[in-house]
């Protein structure tokens, strides 16, 4: 299904200075991961009985998989709205998605206290069908597999296997790739429906699944633009500005759409009164709203003269907005009581940095060894 576009590998040296830096971070975090398994979660992390979920869940899983929704967001455009012109962007977006999801899965293994019982998630006899987390876990596992299948043509092309043979398989993968993220990305919001007492009313809402879903598609486009510009910049390739410009209207719709939903919820459920009730949470709320509002307004007003720099900044603001929204729901506005505090420890943060580094490393290896990025016009 991707044969209509030509891709190329970036023929460049692998061992660069940044590569070595990320390798070093990865090594350091491997040591900390070993300590975590030897001594227990409390030894490396600041998580507590009050805050049983820290940045590993919030950043690596919830935000990490949201970063990895570029593939999903583009698939909506390409396969549902039939906007084939975005096809050149799909491979690198799929790669980021596959990596984001795989490493989210890996950090869950680090985070699970009783990882040796993990196989139980695959035993239907143990399934608790009322558990939102079960749905999230199964969907994420399935989708990670789907992402790699969707990415298969890239490997196949490299090894000279006929891509056409894979089309039937990838077709099914594409469909699952549209359904599974819709399910689990909204359910990542549903996970906190049960926090009726602990999540601030400014965030706790029956709209949680919808707000998570809308913002994840927005983050997907934002991340696609950021990643495309970043790799063009660092590999000194021409910017894909013409395509990214076409993404901006969708981001504007989603940005304003999300804001409307956010305030509809506050108005409909009479929660406007909480807007200024807590100075810190109020600041976080407005920061979150601004991170959705500002890029939407700027994308709109600059629509005639969008430069790569502007697209990068505005898309990045959206990604930040979605990230802050997720942090607010999972950590900032979620409170077990005044006697508990949480801030990630150094070692805990190092594990997260190590996982991000691993993601960057694998990305670099694959784009340099396999045809992922669209061929530049001068070459082909």
């Amino acid at each position, binding site marked *: *299904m991707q044969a209509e576009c030509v891709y190329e590998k970036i023929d460049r040296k692998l061992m660069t200075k940044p590569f070595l830096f990320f390798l070093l971070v990865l090594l350091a975090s491997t040591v900390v991961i070993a300590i975590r*398994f030897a*001594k*227990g*979660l*409390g*030894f490396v992390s600041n*998580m*507590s*009985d009050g805050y*049983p*979920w820290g940045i590993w869940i919030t950043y690596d899983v919830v935000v990490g998989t949201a970063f990895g929704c570029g593939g999903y967001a583009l698939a909506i455009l390409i*396969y*549902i*709205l*039939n906007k084939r012109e975005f096809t050149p962007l799909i491979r690198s977006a799929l790669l980021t998605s596959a990596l984001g999801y795989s490493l989210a899965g890996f950090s869950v293994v680090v985070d*699970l*206290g*009783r*990882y040796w*019982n*993990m196989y*139980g*998630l695959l035993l239907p006899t*143990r*399934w*608790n069908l*009322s*558990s*939102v*987390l*079960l*749905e999230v*876990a199964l969907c994420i596992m399935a989708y990670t597999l789907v992402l790699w299948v969707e990415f298969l043509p890239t490997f196949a092309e490299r090894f000279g296997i006929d891509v056409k043979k894979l089309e039937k398989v990838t*077709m099914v993968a*594409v*469909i699952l790739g*549209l*359904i599974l993220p*819709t399910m689990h990305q*909204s*359910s990542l919001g*549903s*996970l*906190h*429906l*049960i*926090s*009726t*007492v*602990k999540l601030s009313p400014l965030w706790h809402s*029956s*709209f*949680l*699944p*919808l707000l998570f*879903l809308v913002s994840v598609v927005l983050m997907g486009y934002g991340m696609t633009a950021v990643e495309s510009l970043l790799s063009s910049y660092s590999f000194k390739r021409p910017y894909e500005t013409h395509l990214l410009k076409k993404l901006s209207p969708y981001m504007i719709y989603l940005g304003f759409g999300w804001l409307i939903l956010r305030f509809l919820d506050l108005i*409909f459920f009479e929660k406007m009164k909480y807007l200024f009730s807590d100075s810190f949470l109020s600041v976080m709320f407005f920061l979150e709203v601004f991170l959705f509002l500002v890029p939407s307004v700027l994308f709109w007003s600059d629509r005639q003269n969008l430069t790569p720099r502007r697209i990068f900044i505005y898309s990045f603001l959206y990604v930040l907005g979605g990230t802050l929204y997720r942090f607010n729901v999972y950590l900032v506005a979620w409170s*077990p*009581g005044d006697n508990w505090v949480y801030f990630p420890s150094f070692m805990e943060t190092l594990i997260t940095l190590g996982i991000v580094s691993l993601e960057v490393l694998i990305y670099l290896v694959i784009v340099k060894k396999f045809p992922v990025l669209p061929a530049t016009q001068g070459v082909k």
Partner: protein
Amino acid sequence: MKEGKNVETRRDFLKKLFTGAASVAAVTTFPSLSLAKTKYYYPPDYWYGMLYDSTKCIGCKSCVVACKKANNLPPELDEYRIYDEATDLTASTKTIIKVYRSEKGDVSSFVKRQCMHCVDPACVSACPVSAMNKDEKTGIVYWRGDRCIGCRYCMIACPFEVPKFEWGKAFPKIVKCDLCLSSYLPKNGITACADVCPAGAIIFGYRNELLEEAKTRIKRNPDKYLPHVYGEKEGGGTGVLYLTSKAVSFRNLGFPAIPDESPAAYSESIHHGIYRTLAPPFLTVGALYFLLKRNNKE
């Protein structure tokens, strides 16, 4: 001409299909708005519970000691390593006596905390692998170590901050009160804490009978008690019920203001609602498959 017509119908078809798919998506993800139902339950007569009367408690902490002994829990030593000095529920303290002051600060009151054994427990609803269970015969909420994966979603979900985790261990457990189901109860027919209490502040028995008892006490001593049984309706009702004096409100005893609808019921009504509307999800799969095939024939 013929070709043009074909394109036209295909477009029309796609438009229809897309609007269909979009409205399905909108309905499925749009949460149901009629959720303001008040739900609390009258559990079966044979479900156990406890009644804690804070006006009777003398704060001797015998219950804390008896619980540790019955359930084989280590002490949390003070700086001289002599006394057990737990100040809150932890992975080695399944029940605790706390002291609170009234709003004015003139009256203090003890309160015993342990698992509330909710009628519709959030932890049981949350657990992905059925490691948290509500025993159908006794109504006791208990944990199964052979299933638990240590995801700690039960701790997130519990509005009473009950399940605790062994953070300092390489092979940790989730720890919470199980009304002595696996220790003292089978042999003695009563929980260790209720058995040992010298002040009669903790009574073990059938939850519905204890609720009647609590209401009778309020009726008999309307000047003494706050006319409210905490746990009758809170969070869908709890197995452990509380009485407090007029001077100290339940808020001041450290209990959350929790709506009558259980967090589990709230979460499930929206989450399951989404999928009930989506039913069958395969329909969507089919529609998308068809759409892709169409799109791909270009």
